[in-house]
Structure formats: structure tokens, C-alpha cells
């Protein structure tokens, strides 16, 4: 794949865009089921884990400047461990992208196209992702940068739902069993998988130092936004109701009763569709970049893209129903702990990595 450098702004937009998709659509349901009205605490903890993971990867990228993630892992770990890590990372990106597509497809079918076959809608999404991937990392970064204004817009459109919020829905606060919080933590962490994108896209930036500095504020913003959305969902709909809803955030949009806006719920849905397709695209791009880095440009970029697209479609169709998809999403959280925390720690502590001089 040809070098597609990203500007710091594009890199930041890419990180932020990757957070608001399938994860945020399904997360409040799971949190409320696990910890009731205190579900937001899990988000807070997961956010802290994500920031820690991001910082670990930043440190790793600084130690091996200019190297792609597979190259870093191969320098730091023994060959079998490095190969296994790359394979796991690839699986994580592919399954995350496929599950995200599945969730977005389900939302589309549920609210927009109830009579259309699932495969047709999913195929349209996969085709879009394939088309967007032709531009490489920079193309995807530009797309995220260009559609970046949709995020504040979507938050603005959520604000009217505040009129239905009840503070009593959040009470009593902090009464949940701490063991329940910690047992739910790995699964909730899936939604914060964006820290795994840091080592994939950071080496592609024009100014990795500036991009590195921009990483933590972005991660903190994402964590704060997630906490606020979860709080809003519980405050407006109540923890019990949220725990039985498939996509509470969509219901939040539909709960808006402001005249005119109420009539345009379709446009909110369309807006979320666009927002939610970006993480699918970004994780698919990460998969292509990772494979590309691992194969060291021995396979043409277009061929890789089509292979990734085909895999995504098959993985998406293999999920028999949305409940299974949500279950997969939650189990991906454990994978996130393994790859987001354990892998960078191993690479940083590895004696092989310490011996190697930093290379430009």
C-alpha cells in the first residue's frame, strides 16, 4: 500500500469517529443490565482503561518511531508470539468491523427498511467500505475529518431529549456492588477499542509527535461523551427500560417531542447511520493497514481491500442474530484487555525491545 500520510487533525478525527458507532448504540443496555443506574461508573472505568492503553501504545510508538505495528511487535517479541499477536489483532479488527456492520444493518432494517433483506443492506455497507478503502488511510482520515461536524450535531440533536430527564432515575447513586462493576468492565471496554487504532495510524501521520500529543485529549473526550450519553439514557428512559432496549440511544432520539424535530426522527436515524458506518470503515482500514504492514507490501492494496471486504461480509452473515452479535461485541472486550493492555506492556517490558536501538 502506498504511503498515505495523515494530518494530525485527520488522525484525531479518525480516532473520535471510531468511537461513536455500534458500541455506543448497544452499551447503555448492557451497562444498565449489569449495574442499574450506576452503569455510567463502568464507562468511567473503561474510559480510564482506554486512556491507559492509549498511553502505553503511545510510549511504544515513541520507542520505535516510524515503524508499523507488526514491525514493532516483531522487534519486541519472539517470532511466534509476534505472529500470534498480529493474527489476534487482525481478528479483533475484522470481528469488530463485521459486528459493527451487523449492528448498523440491524438499525437500518429496524427503523428504515423493514422489508429489505439483511444481506442487501449489509452488502451496500460493505461496498461503501470497499470503495472508501481505495483511498487508503488518508482517504479514510479525510472522510472522518469531513464528516466530523456530524458528531457535535448529533449531540445537539440529543439535547432536546433532556426535557424528559428525571434526576430520580439516577438515584440512588453508587449503590452497585463493586464486584459487579469490575466483572462488567472487560465487556464494556469493547466500546473503547479505539486505543488499538493508535499504533496503527500514528506511524502514518505527517507529524507523529503532534499526533501523539493530540491522542490523549481525544481519548478523554470520547470517554466523557460516553459517560454523558449513558447518564442521559438512564436519566430520560430509566435504568430498567434501558436494560430491555436493543438500541437505547436511538430510542433517546425518538423520545424528542419538540415540534418539527419530532417529525424528523428519520433524519436522526440517517445521521446515526452515517456516524455508525465510520467505525466499521476505520476498523476495516486498520485491518488492511495491519495486513499490509505485516506482508510488507507484497500483496497489492486493492487485492487486500477486496479480501478484507469479502471477509467482513462473510463474518457479518455468519452472525445468526443480533443477540449473538451483541454477545460477540461484549466478548471482544476481553480481547481488548489482552491486546490493548497486555500486548503493549509485554512489548515495552520485552528485553529484546530494550536491546534494539530506536530506528527512524
Amino acid at each position, binding site marked *: 500500500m502506498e504511503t498515505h500520510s495523515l*494530518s494530525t*487533525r*485527520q488522525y484525531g478525527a479518525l480516532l473520535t469517529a471510531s468511537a461513536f458507532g455500534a458500541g455506543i448504540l448497544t452499551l447503555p443496555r448492557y451497562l444498565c443490565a449489569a449495574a442499574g443506574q450506576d452503569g455510567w461508573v463502568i464507562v468511567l472505568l473503561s474510559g480510564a482503561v482506554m486512556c491507559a492503553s492509549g498511553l502505553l501504545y503511545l510510549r511504544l510508538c515513541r520507542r520505535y518511531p516510524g515503524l508499523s505495528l507488526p514491525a514493532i511487535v516483531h522487534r519486541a517479541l519472539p517470532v511466534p508470539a509476534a505472529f500470534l499477536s498480529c493474527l489476534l489483532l487482525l481478528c479483533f479488527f475484522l470481528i469488530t468491523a463485521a459486528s459493527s456492520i451487523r449492528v448498523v444493518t440491524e438499525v*437500518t432494517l429496524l427503523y*428504515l*427498511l423493514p422489508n*429489505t433483506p439483511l444481506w442487501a*443492506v449489509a452488502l*451496500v455497507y460493505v461496498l*461503501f467500505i470497499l*470503495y*472508501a478503502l*481505495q*483511498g487508503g488511510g488518508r*482517504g479514510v482520515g*479525510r*472522510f472522518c*475529518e*469531513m*464528516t466530523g461536524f456530524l458528531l457535535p450535531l448529533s449531540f445537539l440533536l440529543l439535547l432536546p431529549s433532556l426535557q424528559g430527564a428525571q434526576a430520580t432515575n439516577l438515584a440512588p447513586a453508587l449503590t452497585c456492588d463493586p464486584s459487579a462493576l469490575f466483572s462488567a468492565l472487560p465487556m464494556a471496554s469493547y466500546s473503547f477499542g479505539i486505543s488499538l487504532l493508535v499504533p496503527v495510524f500514528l506511524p502514518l501521520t505527517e507529524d507523529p509527535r503532534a499526533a501523539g500529543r493530540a491522542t490523549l485529549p481525544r481519548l478523554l473526550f470520547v470517554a466523557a461523551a460516553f459517560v454523558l450519553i449513558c447518564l442521559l439514557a438512564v436519566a430520560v428512559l430509566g435504568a430498567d427500560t434501558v436494560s430491555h432496549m436493543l438500541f437505547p440511544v436511538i430510542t433517546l432520539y425518538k423520545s424528542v417531542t419538540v415540534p418539527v424535530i419530532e*417529525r*424528523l426522527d*428519520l*433524519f436522526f436515524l*440517517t445521521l446515526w*447511520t*452515517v456516524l455508525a*458506518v465510520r467505525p466499521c470503515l476505520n476498523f476495516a482500514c486498520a485491518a488492511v493497514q495491519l495486513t499490509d504492514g505485516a506482508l510488507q507490501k507484497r500483496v497489492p492494496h486493492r487485492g487486500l481491500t477486496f479480501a478484507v471486504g469479502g471477509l467482513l461480509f462473510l463474518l457479518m452473515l455468519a452472525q445468526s442474530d443480533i443477540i449473538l452479535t451483541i454477545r460477540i461485541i461484549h466478548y471482544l472486550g476481553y480481547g481488548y484487555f489482552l491486546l490493548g493492555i497486555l500486548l503493549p506492556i509485554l512489548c515495552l517490558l520485552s528485553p529484546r525491545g530494550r536491546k534494539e536501538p530506536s530506528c527512524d
Partner: protein
Amino acid sequence: MQNDYAALCRVLADISAGADDLIRREVSLPPENIPCVIAFLDGIVNKELLNAGILTPILQPEPYCAEKSPADIRERLLRRFLCVSEVKTLSDGEEIRAELYTGGIVVLAAGMEGALILRLDGFMRRDPGAPLNDRTVSGPRDSFTESLPGNVGLVRKKLPDPRLRVRKMLCGRRTRTNIALLYVEDIAPPERVREVEARIRKIDIDGILASGYIAQLTERTGGSPFPTYREIERPDIAVAALLEGRIVVLCDHSPLALSFPTIFPELLQAAEDYYEKPTAGTFARLLRWVCFFLAISLPALYVALVSFRPEILPYDLLVTIAGLRSEVPFPVIWETLFIEFAVQIIIESALRLPEPLGQTIGVVSGIIVGQAIISASLATPMVLIVVALANICTFCIPSFSLSVAVRILRLCMVFPAALFGIFGFSLSWMFLLVHMQSLDSMGVPYLAPFAPNVPTDRKDAALRVPLRDMLHRPRSIGCTNSRRARR
């Protein structure tokens, strides 16, 4: 020397065998009566100037007669042709042939080495009148013509900067069309100048008939309908482009200049934006952006809403549409496509017909045929309004190439909207955005300053800030001298 003269005469004889429009005049140069031949092609030489500037002086007796050396004969002839500004000497038969075919007058004299080539271009040329498309109320009203030297002169007159560089080259194996590359040396980025020049030099085609050929042959955007160049009809816009660090390409026989690199927001800008107050300029620009969106979206949005989600429409409007629709035997997509095709046919026919007839066609088709379609229940008045509005929005786009792209995209958008409703419509726009951001013009991203984001360039993109605040040239172009004004 006699041989040289005889050989060149044979070249002329060769040419005349295949060109009946070659005029060959044999005269004698007084006082020794040296045989001379004057040859030119009829129609592309100004005969009045030829008579006054070449034939009359050549036949005038000369009081002083020097030796008959070859250099002396050329000198004597040149002294006689003082009133002809463009004179050169050639001896290669092929070069002489090429000059003759491009409007040169060949003068041969016995004893003279080579041939004198004089230029008195007399091809019918029009005066620089008002531009056809990009008209302004407050701006200048001159426009480029089909004459390359004239067009270069128009630019030079407006930009008498010694650092304005004009690089000429020939393009087209058979047409040998003159191309001029204009840029300001200390503003235009050298790598972009090299890129444009290299792409033009790479062109290998038999004929270049208009600047559109160069635009297409230098593009690397595959099958994209979007133009990555700007066609300029007015010298003031060309000068503005040069001052922004762009490269302007002028082509002989074409009244349109091209500017490279071109970014998308530029195609929605007009000269008037800068000649009026910034509020007026910004308003006009925003209006054009809205028109661009509506021109592409209106029919698709109508199809998506009526076919999939009519409940979004206000109740009264919905009832009206349902009432009208009940009399039309076709699905809404066919109805929309039918009207869209009919309107496109009318536009195309009006463009090809002479002006008065074109206007008549517009009135006849718009009123009579439109009324007949409604009466025959082939379409609802609502579709007619939607399609007509979309087409009117298309005419608000200043760039003709972009408006053609919009016409095509409008038709393409209808199909996903009919298949997937609002979802298909929004996804089509996403495809479009991804496509647009993948384009570049001579290495500059097409959607700059939005993607990639260049905040300083946004002052002159969708908005137009006051001129005193436009302190820098577009950063996305990468000018060598970025400062254009000081407070």
C-alpha cells in the same frame, strides 16, 4: 546558393501540389531583378498588410545597391520589410512547410541562404466581447477570444508584472496547436508548474482543437464526472487565478483558458463575488452551495420520501400528492425519470438551436408540453415542479463542466433513492463525498480547504470575507510567496 533557392522552390511546388489554396507570387527584386518567390496560404494571411508591408516594398526601386552576397540580400530584404514585426530565417524544408501551414509568409530569393518567414496573421478573429457564461454587473466585460496572442495580451495588460512567465509549446502532431503556460514566477509553486508542463508535454495526439482537449488529457481522475480544472472565460479571473499561485493554460483557437490546480469550492465561485461587498458575495456563494445540493438531491429526495416515508411530509401536502398520484399510472420513479429525461432533451435541443429558436423551444416545451403531460396524467405537477426546480438550481452553478456533472449525478441519485429510500439517498451522498475527497487536481486535494482542513483558506471558500482580511494566498496551493496583502 542557387541550389538552395531551387531546392526550396521545389518544396513550395510540392506543397502546392496538395494545397490549391497556396498562393505563389514570383517577383523581381530591383535594381538587379533578383528572382524572388512569395508564398502563403489563402485565408490565413492578412492580404492588405501583405500588399502594403511586403509586395509594395519589395517592388520599390532602391537607390543604393550593395554586393550580391547572401547575407546582403537577406539584409536588403529585411530593410524592406521593416514594417513586419515578426521575421525569422529558416532553411529546413520541413520547418518552412510547418510555418507555411500555420500562417507564415515564405519569401525566397535567388542567392539568399534559406527562406525568410514573415507573419501577418489575417485569420478572421472576433473582438473580445462580453463573456457568454460568466457575466457580471460590476466587473469588466471583456473575454478571451480564439487568438492565443490576443489572449496572452489581455492577461499581460491586466498583469504587467515582469515576473509573469509565458511558456509556449506546440501540441498536437497534426494541428500543431500553440499552447501557452502562464504563471507568476515568485508565486506559483515550481513543482506544480513542472507537473502541469510535464503533463502537457506528455500529450501525444494528432489534434488539439480546444482547451477542453488539454483539460481531459492532463486529468488523472479516471471516470469521475467532476472537473478538476476550471474553465475561465474572463481575463480578470485568469489574473486572479495567477495571483493565487495557479497556472493558467491558454490554447490557440479556444476562447477558454484553464486554471490548475482547481479545488471544488472554486467551481462555485463567480467573479461578481469579489466585485460586490463581502455580505453580497457570501450570500451568493451560500446560495450556490445550496443550489448544488438541491440540484443533485431534489428528484431523489422526492422519490425517497413519496415512495418510502410519506409520513414525514406535512399532512395537507401528503393528501394533495396522494390525490394527484392516484391519476398517474406509473410508479413515482418512472414518472420522475420521464420528466427528467424530457427536461434534459429540451435543454440539449435549446443549446443546439439558434438563439431565437432555442428560446421558442423553451417556451413551447415548458408551457405547452408540460401542460399536455399534466393533462394526460403522465406525471403530477409536483414532479414537474421538483424537476424544474432542480434544473434551475443547476443553472446557478457558474462552472459549465460542473453543471454537466450535476445533471448526470442527479439522474444517478434517483435509483438508490428508489431502491432504499432515504437510506439509499444518504448513502449515495456518502459515496459521492468519498469519491470527491479521493480526487485531486495537480496534487492538491479537491475538497480543500474542507478535507483536508485548511482554516485560513476557508475565508475564501463557501464564505467570502472582506478583501482586507484576505492576507494570504491559498495555503492548499502551496504558493512560494504566501502573503498577498498587509493591513
